């Protein structure tokens, strides 16, 4: 059996009275590339952001590489702890876990006050005990990989959208994560820049990086994914291999969605 990278169990998330995630249970295996598609407001971003606890699900569990990270307890567990038959779980250090989960945002969120190189080296030097020299070396290597080596000392303000997103991707990679989470990495880009970013992601997943990709790029999802999830109304309504998913959709909501999108 392949190893489980991320497993969610009955994940619930609400914003006020809006029930956005309605009990999502899903497993991402090591090395797997999973795309999530679905209508706007369906909860895709919320689900992704729950995985590294940028949003805190109020109910349900998330296991990352075997460790539970939400600290949420089921009713039975609460009773067991009260009764003394189960020890109180240790407090989760989410910062530690986040180091192993890279995230790429729709709006890049590069650090505008730091140079391209510093954007990449900041976290590894602060958190992984890398020396400046080691981190710089790594930054150069990563930037060459995505064709930005000539921007090493530029400020991010001077970069195009596509370049910023490529920088954001390597900034995350510099932490040597075990999984990458992408939230619509190309949705904010001018059309002519979408390709360059998708190429970088494609290159990355080809190296075997476990990835979860929320995207509206159907062709891309079909091409790179091992599995495609359809998320709407706060849950995963259908999932399948890309070929089956796009050629043989069964859920009426998915059929309806694909007929509009394709």
């Amino acid at each position, binding site marked *: 059996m392949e190893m489980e990278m991320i497993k969610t169990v009955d994940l619930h998330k609400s914003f006020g009275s809006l029930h956005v995630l309605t009990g999502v249970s899903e497993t991402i295996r090591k090395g797997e590339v999973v795309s999530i598609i679905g209508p706007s407001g369906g909860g895709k971003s919320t689900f992704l952001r729950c995985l*590294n606890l940028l949003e805190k699900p109020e109910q349900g569990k998330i296991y990352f590489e075997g460790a539970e990270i939400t600290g949420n307890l089921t009713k039975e567990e609460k009773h067991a702890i009260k009764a003394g038959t189960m020890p109180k779980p240790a407090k989760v250090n989410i910062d530690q876990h*986040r180091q192993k989960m890279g995230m790429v945002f729709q709006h890049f969120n590069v650090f505008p*006050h730091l140079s391209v190189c510093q954007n990449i080296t900041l*976290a590894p030097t602060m958190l992984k005990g890398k020396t400046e020299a080691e981190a710089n070396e790594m930054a150069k290597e990563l930037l060459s990989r995505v064709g930005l080596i000539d921007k090493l000392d530029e400020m991010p303000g001077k970069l195009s959208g596509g370049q910023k997103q490529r920088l954001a991707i390597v900034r995350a990679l510099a932490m040597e994560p075990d999984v990458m989470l992408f939230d619509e990495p190309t949705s904010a880009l001018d059309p002519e820049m*979408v390709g360059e970013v998708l190429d970088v992601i494609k290159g990355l997943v080809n190296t075997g990086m476990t990835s979860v990709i929320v995207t509206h790029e159907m062709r891309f999802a079909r091409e790179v994914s091992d599995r495609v999830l359809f998320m709407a109304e706060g849950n995963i309504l259908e999932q399948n291999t890309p070929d089956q998913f796009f050629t043989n959709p069964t859920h009426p909501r998915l059929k309806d969605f694909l007929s509009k999108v394709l």
Partner: protein
Amino acid sequence: MNFATIGSNIVKLLSQYWKVFLIEGLSNTLLLTVIAVSLGALLGALVAILKMSRFKVIRFLISIYIEVIRGTPILLQLYIFVFALPSLLPFLNLSYFTWTAIALCINSSAYVSEVFRSGIQAVDKGQTEAARSLGLSAGQTMRKIILPQAIRNILPALGNEFIMILKETSLASTFFVGDLMTSYLTVKGATYLGFECLIIVGMIYLCVTFPLSKLVSWFEKKMANPNYKKHDHKRKRAVMEGGKV
């Protein structure tokens, strides 16, 4: 009275009393302002931190503090500090100048705390999310990512606060603390040339505030955050509709 006599009176006054205006008046005004703004900034930073506390009671108390100070006239606050507090705390035995400085400090802390808070909150939330997603703690994120960006919003506002307080120190002349406005009262009393004195004092205030405000706006332009394009959702739809599998 005509312009020629006013002009010659001003020249006369300046040559005779420049020490009163500049050495006593202006320097005391600047001293009061520097004390009020620098200590006010320290206190204001503390107030801003407490205002963002996770404890509701603390946030509530701090917002009362801020509202009271911003909602009452600074002259009233000066009266309280110079007249009321010394009689309540007679053992303190501080000078009017010191009490005035304290009052201005407290006043400035309330305004400055809002400058800090809004400066910090103006930094895009995505910056915090990106930093936290890399594994930085909340404190590390504040130090390395948020504050260095917030400072661009904060410094110009602090400059404006300096100019405001500089002008408001004139109210302290009510208690003859020796500021620039006090020197107006002194020289007017000695010469009966009230209008000329006002012109002189006004010119001195302007000589300080005008370059300062120019400096602030220069700085604002220089520090202006590179404005990110706000992204439209139309494009996403276009991509969805145009994308073929």
